[in-house]
């Protein structure tokens, strides 16, 4: 399946990109999407357990993904 990955703020700077479309195996979870990102150049700057979101909602690592989902890594927030 295809999913969209989104990166923001310091994570986008570290990896040099803000979004990419990737192919994951059927049955993939949020953990698999994160593993994909971890293999990219610059990913060593990511923390051990970044917060993740699926379709604009915080999501646990074992949440299954569906074709077309948007998966985001959420850096520590700074609103206010």
């Amino acid at each position, binding site marked *: 399946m295809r999913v969209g990955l989104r990166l923001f703020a310091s994570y986008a700077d570290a990896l040099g990109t803000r979004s990419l479309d990737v192919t994951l195996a059927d049955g993939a979870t949020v953990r698999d999407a994160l593993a994909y990102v971890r293999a990219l150049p610059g990913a060593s700057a990511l923390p051990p357990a970044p917060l993740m979101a699926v379709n604009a909602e915080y999501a646990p690592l074992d949440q299954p993904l569906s074709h077309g989902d948007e998966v985001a890594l959420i850096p*520590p927030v700074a609103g206010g």
Partner: protein
Amino acid sequence: MNHVALVTEAIDVAALLARVSSPTVGAIASFLGTVRNVNDNRAVTGIEYSAYEEMAEREMRAIVAEAAAQVDGVPPRIAIEHRLGELSLGDVSVAIAVSHARRAPALDACRYVIEELKKRVPIWKREHYADGSRAWVDNRNTVGAVELPGVIG
């Protein structure tokens, strides 16, 4: 009736207060976040805010619903605007206005909204310093840091 928005122009605080005003309310609590000239002892000259916009709006709407659910009877009216882009010293970055018939629910809900917004809403800021450098800063490493949500999963 409630209002949540990300904006790129200056926040019109009077207009936000007017959104929650009504002859049926007796109390309006509000909170403004503004850009300070110093953070962690570094001279700040400006701040650049960015967001995961769809998610930030969704989280703000969720926070509004939670705040309303904590009030017995008629829920408070709540309006929130957060500014994105380049902000100067003194600019309002976030404005929250909450009205209710009574003051305690208005004050409580206003505080709940700003505390949760600082913990959960995916908005980021990069500070610009007097020496020309820039740095991403988050709500954990600033004075009055908030407790972030535990890592999920």
